[in-house]
């Protein structure tokens, strides 16, 4: 799993690639959670993620809760069909705004 972070305007764009499972989830959490600041806007580009385990889903929800607590916003972009379906079936998708592309994601956060 790899994580790249960049800023586009006010938005922190986090690109994740690889699998997020119990082996990589702690690392993802360690790198991503500190990005959450008061009123921060985070775009999570997941187009490079092929599989997310239960632990991976929990990293996402932890982010959501932290961001919500600090009045920020989060958008998930580029979810693969299977991941999106898994998130929907397990209820995790309910928490998130999703968009197909980074541009649409940026728009949703603006």
């Amino acid at each position, binding site marked *: 799993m790899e994580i790249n972070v960049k800023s586009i305007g006010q938005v922190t764009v986090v690109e994740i690639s690889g699998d997020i499972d119990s*082996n990589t989830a702690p690392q993802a959490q360690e790198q991503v959670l500190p990005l959450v600041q008061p009123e921060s806007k985070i775009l999570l580009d997941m187009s490079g993620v092929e599989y997310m*385990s*239960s*632990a991976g889903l929990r990293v996402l*929800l932890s982010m959501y809760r932290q961001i919500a607590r600090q009045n920020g916003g989060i958008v998930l972009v580029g979810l693969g069909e299977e991941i999106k379906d898994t998130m929907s*079936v*397990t*209820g995790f998708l309910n928490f998130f705004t999703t968009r197909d592309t980074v541009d649409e994601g940026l728009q949703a956060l603006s």
Partner: protein
Amino acid sequence: MERIERIDIHPTHTHGEFKLRAGRPLPFGATQMEGGVNFSISSRHASTCTLVLFKKRQSEPMAEIPFPDEFRIGNVFAIVVFGLDYEGIEYGFRMEGPYDPREGHRFDPTKILLDPYAKVIGGRDAWGTEVNWNDIYQHRGRIVFDDFDWGSDRPLEIPTEDLIIYEAHVRGFTRHASSGVKHSGTFAAIREKIPYLKELGVNCIELMPIFEFDEFENSRTHPETGELLLNYWGYSQVGFFAPKAAYAATGKFSMQVDELKALIQDLHNNGIEVFLDVVFNHTAEGNENGPTISFRGIDNQSYYMLTKEGYYYNFSGTGNTLNCNNPMVRNMVLDCLRYWAAEYHIDGFRFDLASILGRDPWGAPLSNPPLLENLAFDPILSKCKLIAEAWDAGGLYQVGSFPSYGRWAEWNGKYRDAIRKFLKGDMGLVGEMAQRIQGSPDLYWWRGPTASINFITAHDGFTLADLVSYNQKHNEANGENNNDGGNDNDSWNCGWEGPTDDPEINTLRCRQLKNAVAILMVSQGVPMILMGDEIARTQQGNNNAYCHDSELSWMDWTLLKSNADLFRFFKNCIAFRKVHAVLRNRTHLRNQDYVESGYPDISWHGVRAWQPDWSGTSRTLAFMLCGKHANNGKTQDNYIYVVMNMYWEAQMFELPGLPPGMQWHVSTNTIAPPPEDIWEPGREPLVKDQQQFLVGPRSVVVLVGK
């Protein structure tokens, strides 16, 4: 604020590469904790215990860690293993102890045993996938994530008298190709069908067993048809704390816990409660010839009811009987139900063969069974509905006398039997019908009508469509020479056994279906309908379809179109019940006028108003509910008049007079062709002749006075 590090995150022992420390005895099972997993298991008779760890789906263990003696407190072995991959491991136990069947001991350290408290169980992750019978560990404990984000959800606490229960099989509900869902046969698919349930109007779904079971238990090939027969219903539990993985679209990812919780949350959001059919009377281990999965190898003498010779009592009809009133087992059952209520937000439980739960460890019925009392007074379960199937396979029949502690309701088998007989025109039933329609005060006089779960059909026995199409069961497809399944069906085929083109017979059958649901929905108590009855689902006369994972038992959604009139009838019957509080009293009717309305709360009638025919040859009964008595006079409702004519000829019924200014309107008339057989509540047309009403042969009429 920075926290000070706990000191119990540090290992004190090692075993090979594994770092350990003494665990906590409670909670039982495998629990995630900082840096590791706490494993805890009890056995009264084991001398040693070994934790067996696997990498997920591997054939050989990756480690076997004997519990150091100092890790045992009392009869509980508890250990923390640090650095485990929560998602990547499976665990089990080996136990050493005496092998002495006469004394009830069957320890076998060659077997790897499933944790009775396992919250996730792997091994049958996708339904019907070929099993590797050489696998040394068939049903594998896994570590649960139990941190689901429920938001503001909690059990709905719908008043019992307002419930309308829909009994469904998770897989059968959407497995049929016509269901049109994405993940057919799963929890996720039920979520897709929530709009259907809402349109029908039910506010509670009761799921047939969803605890992990093995669909391949006693699987066999039918000698003539070659059909693979499975344990489709699942009334045989491998573990009591884990949802069936193969019922989840995400079972292959071990996400069944989250998927089921998401379903329950969504059902709650739509005003629908969730009941579970729970089977604590026996386990999947069968008798002495069955497999050793868990309980038998952990503490056979404690978990099972045994004869003096050490054989298994068989009050369940399935080979063994769980020893529910052994104090340790009792605690497990309580822990289990608390877990489902607290962690899954379950609204109610229906207990399969519940009379077994009232037997002592030697099988004798107890007058004050501690388990039933515990469940009735438990603080976590205190708003859960508790429903007993108040009989067992050992001959105990307790309908009306199940120890209730003011909390337990019952599947009212006497309601089912009386309505069925009355429907087919048997004589001598009007007296009993009066009791059943009032919520069976003869059975539940101090418990109230909500103790009575009224049903005409359930998973056991004919579907409603088959009840009016077959005189005899037709269970040949079960491969037991038609010997299985009940023989006392009280069914009537309306003149021809099975499907027919005869329009007269088909019209009568359709009317009988409507008569049945109309009576069910105007009865005091809690109505329950069986999945698919609203669209005339058939099992081709099979009254025991437990082994058929096929179109025989699945709900065929094309029937929704072909039987649209019946669906509409069901829907409006349910809507009518929901609108009229006078049909949903919490306390029994008194047959008196106690609000000075000039009418008793319920009054009885025949072809002449105020003159019911209670004679032994009578096949008709009419009753009027006084709207001013609804909810003990606290709610104002319309007057309701119901006529049931199960005689084969039409009869003119004189109508009782209403208070000045009110008139009778027709809600239901089952002889009338659709759409005039039933009207949406509020749109009932005026009855032209307010003095009398011609009630057709074998018909039910419901009038509203307003």
